[in-house]
């Protein structure tokens, strides 16, 4: 059996890495990777290959032998002609598509859940409630103290949610309400394990009461369709709906007092 | 001590009665429907009597609203049309009132005319405004103009099953509507295409039903001698289901019974 040449191995590794980055990582596993990042990785791989083949003289000569042959060997004439046609055509196509490509607007560099400063004072309308670190849901303690009372708060939260929130955040709290498709950014998905467990109830109170316009600039407040709910809901209704969110999804909020 | 027991008795009695009332409170909604005998058998009536009368309206006569003919004006808008829910004559005679016997169990059969009920949609208006249809008999909808209608009968409102809704396209001059096996109604019939078109259909088990004419007059003929409850129904004035009028018919005789109706609250 003929041994596969070192050049072919390196070539295959190079192409396979690109396919892996472009389609496997940036498709199956995760979202597409920007082409500039891929280019960076590919450059690294290229250098690594060069280093590998040039460590020993014999290995290097073995590596360049096929290239050498292709360029001058009389037996490799067909391959030479094919490459001489193929490479210019590929370069032609590549340059053309690059030049003709349409510019794409830069996306908003939006922080989906901007963290307020730790000394942040939580308010309802003008009324101060306490610092973001310390404030707890005033009805949370009923969960242990009075299951009956707790249930009535959950039920009130459910009512508040379906009277006000489900249009966008959805019946299943998955951010896919019947109005969701018209908004950018999309409404929050409370079924996402990265949402409720990562934030304190006080954080939710802040986001609900102040809505989109209450976001700091890195949260692109001008894009958010979240209303300023303190203008519509009572303080208790906001805390109740926060209870309902965790009740329905089964997730627990990050305990208060813990740093983010 | 005795008083205490008596009070307890009263309290418990009140509870019990309250529950009974709770258990069948749906009688209320039946007040705007016709009342039928449990069963009806036909027989030959040779010495029957006659019930006649005039239905009059009392109170301020609501102005008949002119209907907005917003479609197919060439055909439908030829003549002005008015809301026919309260049609009152010069001396307060009330048209379109059903007067009928509530509790007759034996009597004559339907005649040939009653067995061929029709509603005409000429000029985009249902004529008659109140139609009596015997149970098990098919109603025919007539349409002589090249206009598409739909016949939407709201049976479900009277718990008579699913509504009927059939398109009668402009090429269909006649459309027969399936018969209904059980008595009920009156139910509304509408044309959704021409939203102003509304009428009423009563599905009835016996022929002792009359609809008052322009003069407010009604006649029930060939009534076997006996005492009956005489009922009425009017779309805006309601019914006398709670206090039916008793009439006694003698062989070959004629009973006069007039009614005076007010708008239902």
């Amino acid at each position: 059996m003929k041994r596969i040449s070192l050049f072919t191995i390196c070539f295959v590794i190079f192409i396979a890495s690109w396919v892996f980055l472009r389609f496997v990582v940036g498709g199956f596993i995760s979202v597409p990777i920007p082409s500039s990042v891929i280019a960076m990785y590919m450059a690294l791989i290229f250098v690594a290959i060069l280093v590998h083949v040039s460590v020993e003289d014999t290995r290097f000569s073995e590596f360049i032998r096929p290239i050498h042959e292709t360029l001058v060997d009389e037996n490799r004439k067909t391959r030479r002609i094919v490459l001489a046609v193929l490479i210019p055509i590929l370069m032609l196509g590549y340059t053309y598509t690059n030049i003709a490509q349409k510019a794409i607007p830069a996306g908003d560099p939006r922080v989906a859940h901007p963290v307020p400063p730790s000394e942040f004072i939580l308010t309802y309308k003008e009324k101060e409630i306490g610092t973001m670190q310390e404030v707890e849901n005033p009805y949370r303690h009923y969960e242990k103290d009075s299951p009956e009372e707790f249930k009535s708060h959950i039920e009130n939260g459910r009512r508040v949610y379906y009277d006000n929130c489900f249009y966008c955040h959805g019946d299943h709290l998955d951010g896919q309400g019947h109005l969701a498709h018209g908004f950018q950014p999309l409404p929050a998905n409370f079924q996402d394990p990265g949402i409720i467990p990562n934030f304190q109830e006080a954080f939710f109170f802040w986001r609900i009461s102040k809505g989109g316009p209450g976001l700091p600039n890195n949260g692109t407040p001008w894009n958010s369709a979240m209303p300023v709910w303190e203008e519509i809901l009572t303080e208790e209704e906001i805390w109740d709906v926060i209870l309902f969110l965790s009740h329905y999804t089964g997730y627990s909020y990050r305990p208060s007092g813990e740093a983010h | 001590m005795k008083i205490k027991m008596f009070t307890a008795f009263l309290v418990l009695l009140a509870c019990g009665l309250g529950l009974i009332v709770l258990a069948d409170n749906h009688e209320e909604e039946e007040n705007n429907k016709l009342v039928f005998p449990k069963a009806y058998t036909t027989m030959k009536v040779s010495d029957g009597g006659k019930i006649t009368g005039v239905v009059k309206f009392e109170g301020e006569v609501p102005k008949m609203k002119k209907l907005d003919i917003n479609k197919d004006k060439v055909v439908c808008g030829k003549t002005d049309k008015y809301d026919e829910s309260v049609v009152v004559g010069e001396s307060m005679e009330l048209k379109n009132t059903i007067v009928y016997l509530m509790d007759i169990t034996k009597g004559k059969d339907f005649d040939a005319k009653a067995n061929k009920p029709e509603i005409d949609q000429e000029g985009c208006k249902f004529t008659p405004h109140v139609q009596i249809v015997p149970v098990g008999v098919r109603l025919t909808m007539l349409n002589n103009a090249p206009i598409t209608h739909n016949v939407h009968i709201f049976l479900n409102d009277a718990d008579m099953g699913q509504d009927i809704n059939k398109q009668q396209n402009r090429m269909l001059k006649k459309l027969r509507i399936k018969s209904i096996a059980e008595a009920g109604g009156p139910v509304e019939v509408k044309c959704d295409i021409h939203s102003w078109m509304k009428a009423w259909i009563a599905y009835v088990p016996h022929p002792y039903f009359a609809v008052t004419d322009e003069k407010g007059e009604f006649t029930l003929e060939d009534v076997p001698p006996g005492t009956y409850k005489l009922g009425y129904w009017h779309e805006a004035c309601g019914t006398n289901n709670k206090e039916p009028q008793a009439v006694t018919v003698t062989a070959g005789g004629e009973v006069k019974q007039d009614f005076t109706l007010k708008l239902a609250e």
Partner: protein
Amino acid sequence: MRVTFFVLFLLFSSLFTVILVAYAQETPEVSERGKEVYEESCAHCHGIEGRGDGSAAENLLPRPRDFTGGVYKIRSTESGQLPTDQDLFDIITNGMPGSSMPEWESALSANDRWELVAYVKTFYSGFQELEETETTPRLINLTGKVKYSEKSVEIGKVLYTDLGCIECHGNVGRGDGTSAPTLVDVWDFRTWPANLTQGWTFRGGSSTEDIFKRFIGGIAGSPMPAFEGDTFYHFGLTPEESKNFALLEKKVENEEELTEEEQEEYDKLYEKWDTTVLAALDRAEGTELTPEAQKIYDNAMKDVFEKSWHLANYVKSLSPERRPKSAIGKNVLRSQYKEGDLPTLDDAEWGTLTSSYYPLVGQVIVESRQFNPTIDSVNVKSFYNDTEVAFLFTWDDRTNNTTVEETEDFGTSYIDGLAIQFPVKVPKGPTDEKPYFLWGGKKPVYLWQWMASEPESIKELTAKGINNAEEQEDQGTVQVNSEYKDGQYRLWVKRALKTEDKKDLQIEPTVFVPIAFSAWDGANGDVDTKRGISSWYTFVLEPVPSSRRFIYPPIVALLSLGLLVGLRQFVQRRNT
């Protein structure tokens, strides 16, 4: 004394129990799990007792279904029949597009969904009666489907007019028929005929089979009738016979004398037609047909089904397979460069562009809110030249409302309109602050507001909030033209790229400009803040494709070839 009291108490409590038991027996056996799931997931809209009166119901249109009347719109069964369990299961599973009923496949297990079906059925006694009498609802016959083809679509199109679909659904299917503004459902709520060009809003799905089922079975509770066999012209006659019969009918109508042969033919055809209709009526009334009548009926229905498939194919042809992709990311609104005059409203040149789709949803942020918008989207195309830019905005609206009117059944109807929103100053780069998407805030927006009452003019507005807009003092020369036809507005707007007014947006090629929309459907009660809105999207004057794209690539190709040749020569020289 005590004893008597006790006895009395016992007596009454037993009476109490008897009544309770008797009362409870009226309601059929309840699936415990179904009840639990229902109360957790459905009751907030459909109500604890299934009356469609949950707390969220008030703001929804179509309203959540009232289960107590047994009226079900989406069925695979014939008119007058209840739905099958599978129908109910499918609706729960897939939801109802275009309404607020979501899919439950992702949220509930199949078992739970079946439990729900069982529980929902307990709200209406008719289901129990079916079970007791061991009858099953009659299914719509789906065999003999006619394959989609242009010819079938053509036939369907003719039927669409002949059968009277246009009365409600309009000439081209945008739900703008002349009866559309007056429709109410059996629950007395306003209802609109489906816009057949927006298949993604069909409640019961938009497959050809779905359309076929809605047509044959009707949509119970709505004004949509069932197109059963006997609602077709000359049901039971072949096209040839129908033609002959129509001629003879005409003669009879005109009181012309028929020849003996003609009379015979007339009687024969009348008899055939009548027998078929009678068979259909018998069937509808639940009478078992004789084998003979059944055969006549089945034969006649073949023709009806075929026609119905043609019609379904036509309706299917009216809308794209799914909701178009909204204009985000690569899909932004790109105004195309054109030398010379820009096309006017009716110019065929607009047909060369594909439009960008901007979904609209209800403004539910600020009072007064619109929870049930009727305008699905705005579609936009644009051209520009060296000095001007022209836009063509297209959106569907079932009614053309040009004045404020008090209607008897539906409250006040307002004026239709569209507003196009840009920032006054284009943000420099993505981190730069934009105005608030809802008509601005701290930062102002520049608006073009068009109202159907003045179709030939458009106002320039500056706004710093949805309730804080004012007309610009200096109304520039924005040219406008518009048309309302077959349930669709087309609005053409042209403006100079640069203006003198500091409050105007200045438009430069290649610069990405935020753009957003508001739309008012007057018949839907839209006025002021009550309207349909969009988020910020992006618009750009697409740079003229540079001629570099024809010059550089060949140079690069030649260079690479040269490089290869050079390399070979270098190697050869070294070898020698």
